[in-house]
């Protein structure tokens, strides 16, 4: 199942990047997509069912507009702090455990934290929990954790 999905994804990706449809190109596209799918299908979609994959993808896409809005806010906040002559920063390291079960959830949360207001992830993992470096005191991450848990369907 994951083999066929990876093969189709790789084929679409090849067509997008090449944009040509000559015989030799299409044949090599099929050959190399098969090769890549054979070697790495368990890495990309390892052991996930099709229906849960579709649900998670749709939820992730629904999460993106909110994330982009937060990225925009983050950038204006960092610009304000950077250009303020008084250098109003008060860094701290926050530790918390979001109790996410999957690697995908941890990756999404860690990258989202790095992209949003005044926070950078410095440690993330199932056992170690999260350590977040924040530029100003009192950063609130509960909303983002809730949204990522919703993507994972763990609520």
């Amino acid at each position: 199942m994951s083999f066929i999905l990876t093969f189709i994804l790789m084929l679409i990706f090849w067509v997008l990047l090449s944009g040509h449809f000559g015989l030799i190109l299409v044949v090599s596209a099929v050959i190399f997509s098969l090769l890549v799918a054979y070697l790495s299908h368990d890495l990309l979609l390892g052991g996930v069912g099709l229906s849960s994959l579709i649900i998670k993808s749709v939820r992730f896409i629904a999460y993106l507009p909110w994330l982009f809005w937060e990225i925009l806010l983050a950038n204006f906040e960092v610009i304000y702090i950077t250009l303020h002559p008084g250098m109003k920063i008060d860094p701290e390291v926050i530790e918390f455990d979001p109790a996410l079960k999957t690697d995908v959830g941890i990756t999404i949360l860690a990258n989202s934290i790095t992209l949003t207001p005044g926070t950078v992830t410095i440690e993330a993992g199932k056992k170690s929990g999260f350590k977040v470096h924040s530029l100003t005191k009192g950063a609130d991450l509960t909303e983002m954790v809730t949204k990522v848990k919703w993507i994972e369907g763990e609520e």
Partner: protein
Amino acid sequence: MDIGTIICGVLLFIGCFFILVASVGVLRFPDFFTRIHPAGKTDTLGQACVLIGLIFYEGFDFISLKLLIIVVFLLVVNPTATYALANAAFISGVKPWKKGDKRQ
């Protein structure tokens, strides 16, 4: 001048502004962990703005699709690289700067 060129110019200007501010931030902030903030975040939006500006300049065809793919990869790769840097510094024992400390 058509509308695509104007949008392209505006987005290029905004992108360059973000990247300039990121460089100023890297120079002004006091230590490693605070310097990562402008380098990892403001750069991401700056580069994304420049590339989206180029998409508007190019019009919508295969080349702009490739540019869009680069934008998506940047949004994934940039925070991951920032995390790798910060995590390496944290593991090797760099102490985060506290308010009132001297600049490093």
